[in-house]
């Protein structure tokens, strides 16, 4: 509901609230965690954000589908930091000032410093946008770099407090990607973060994103990162993270070519998915597994999973054009 309301705000209508206080209908747990974080930042309730952040930093804070609540929390915050599509600089300047005021009032809070650095990064991204570098005016690129440097500078100045939480390292990975760090530096930051909290999935995601070819990495580097995380998490999660991270890599860059352009191994990914749906037999995971089976051209496995899915697919995990991809995979699986 909140997504919709914020979308309306983007279209020029106002939203002054009242969604979250109402009784939630049957909404996914993922949406609730994400929307709550978004709502708290939307209203400026930093005290409650601190409490939620502290709670989600505990080990094994996952939804019934196995999703990390900490990652969902950060995704919710990002929606407010990113601002309306047609926002002016004034919006980002207020976010900078608001988060700085909170950080100054709470100098020992890691989250407070992370939020301010995040606001500066979002301010920079607002100039750059998300297109290829050659589509961005030089002045905008210069502003993007200025705010990225400001975020890194701020992180350096408040390192002692900020880096007491793995969220500080997640923020650094994002800032590093904007600053064009080399892969060794990402590895060092990710590993330092994992030394603090090896259950923080945000670190896996941040490190993986930096290793993608579009950010200066390569298929080999992607595989190295995924192998590293899969090894670290094997004792507790089996090959779940091998599958999930290749699914992220597919979503973020390789798409339908994940089994041709990357080093993903279907037998291993399949084993990881089996483990995943055994532990978390949520519809979203069965759909993700089926999508990957389709990409891997494993017809028997796809057919079996489609039968389990029945008439209610979760299209959001079937790639960028989910409805059509699902339909195509279904047609291919049932063709003689």
């Amino acid at each position, binding site marked *: 509901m909140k997504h919709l309301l914020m979308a309306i705000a983007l279209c020029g209508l106002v939203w002054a609230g009242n969604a979250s206080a109402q009784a939630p209908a049957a909404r996914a747990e993922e949406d609730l965690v994400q929307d709550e974080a978004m709502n708290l930042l*939307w209203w400026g*309730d930093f005290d409650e954000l601190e409490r939620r952040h502290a709670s989600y930093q505990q080990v094994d804070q996952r939804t019934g589908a196995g999703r990390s609540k900490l990652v969902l929390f950060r995704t919710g915050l990002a929606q407010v930091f990113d601002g309306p599509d047609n926002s002016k600089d*004034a919006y980002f300047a207020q976010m900078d000032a608001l988060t700085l005021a909170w950080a100054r009032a709470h100098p020992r809070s890691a989250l407070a410093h992370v939020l301010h650095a995040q606001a500066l990064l979002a301010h920079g991204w607002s100039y750059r946008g998300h297109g290829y570098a050659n589509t961005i005016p030089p002045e905008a690129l210069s502003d993007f770099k200025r705010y990225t440097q400001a975020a890194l500078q701020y992180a350096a100045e408040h390192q002692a407090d900020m880096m007491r939480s793995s969220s500080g390292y997640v923020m650094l990975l994002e800032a590093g990607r904007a600053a064009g760090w080399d892969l060794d530096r990402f590895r060092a930051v990710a590993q330092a973060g994992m030394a603090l909290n090896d259950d923080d999935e945000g670190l896996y995601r941040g490190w993986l994103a930096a290793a993608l070819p579009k950010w200066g990495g390569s298929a080999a580097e992607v595989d190295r990162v995924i192998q590293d995380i899969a090894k670290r998490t094997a004792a507790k999660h089996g090959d779940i993270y091998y599958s999930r991270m290749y699914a992220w890599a597919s979503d973020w860059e390789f798409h339908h070519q994940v089994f041709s352009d990357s080093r993903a191994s279907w037998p291993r990914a399949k084993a990881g998915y089996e483990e995943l749906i055994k532990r978390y037999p949520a519809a979203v995971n069965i759909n993700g597994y089926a999508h990957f089976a389709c990409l891997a051209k494993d017809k028997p496995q796809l057919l079996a999973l489609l039968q389990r899915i029945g008439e209610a697919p979760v299209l959001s995990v079937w790639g960028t054009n989910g409805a059509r991809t699902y339909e195509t995979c279904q047609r291919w699986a049932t063709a003689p």
Partner: protein
Amino acid sequence: VAAGLDRIQDGVRATWQLGPELQVDPDLRRAVQAMVDKQLPRIRPILNRWLDEARRAQPEAELSQHLGTVWARANNEMSMWQLDSAGPEHDRRQQKAFAHPRACDAPNGKSALEALMHVWNLAPLSERKAYLDSEAELLGRWGTVRAAPPARPSPSLDDVAWRAIDEQIAGKAALPAPLTPVLSWNLLGLPSDRATRKKLNCALQTWMLATDLNQAKGDLPDERWLMHKYARMPDAVSWWDQATPTSPQADEYPSLARSLVVEGSVTVKITRQADGKLLRTEIIRRDLKTPGPKDQRPLFYETLLDEASLAKATALPPGQPTQDEIKSGLYMRQVNFSFVLK
């Protein structure tokens, strides 16, 4: 008579109703419901008494007029209740509660008590009993004779707050504190119309209160708190959200004021630059006649002619400043607008 009084009684009950949409601690809900249940039996005898008084005051009038007087008085009680105080400690608690960042994140219903229950739910558990005790005291005063409420401050809190926002947008002055995203998202990205601003009033008032408390280091001056209380007090304009048509025409009689039989005069202070450019308009006095009781200030109805008066003031020609005014760069005029129902 009974049917008419039933409808008024239902209206009062609606302002104390606790709908199921608002998610609050069940213990708090039970406590508030018990408080309401204790007060509800008082309503009907009070309405009966007011009807008798209306009949005695205007024996020649028809029943519908008498019921209209009772209805107006019941509406006024809602404003009186919200403006009332149970003492300095209660005021301090209210200030803290209403300054909570999520004070406005509640269903926009017609129950004033629900809005209060929402902020009590956000407050620390240790303070809850004090909130409830104070509120029980205030609800217990419903329908009783009370001291005259303090004068409505001018400029209003909304005037001050929106002026700060406009000056920020125009790049003339920095805000006293950074805006929360709900405000900056809606106000700084796109041009905001009157309807948008109205919807954001609660969030803006919360931001102003938090800013004021921060600047006052927690000890808000009485006159400033009064501005906040008046801004939050429900009245006919906020209740029906249609004081005037969307684009108020200077020569139109406000439709809600017409249907509520409200007439009178409003004095507006107009401030212009020496070159005649309009800087601001502020209401500084209201003398209204309403169908309600004559011995009470019509708090609930007081702002019904505001927007129309401001529209008329804005439409006036700039006039000529004196030489002294030209030197000072500003000139002000007070203009009285009369509204008479024909």
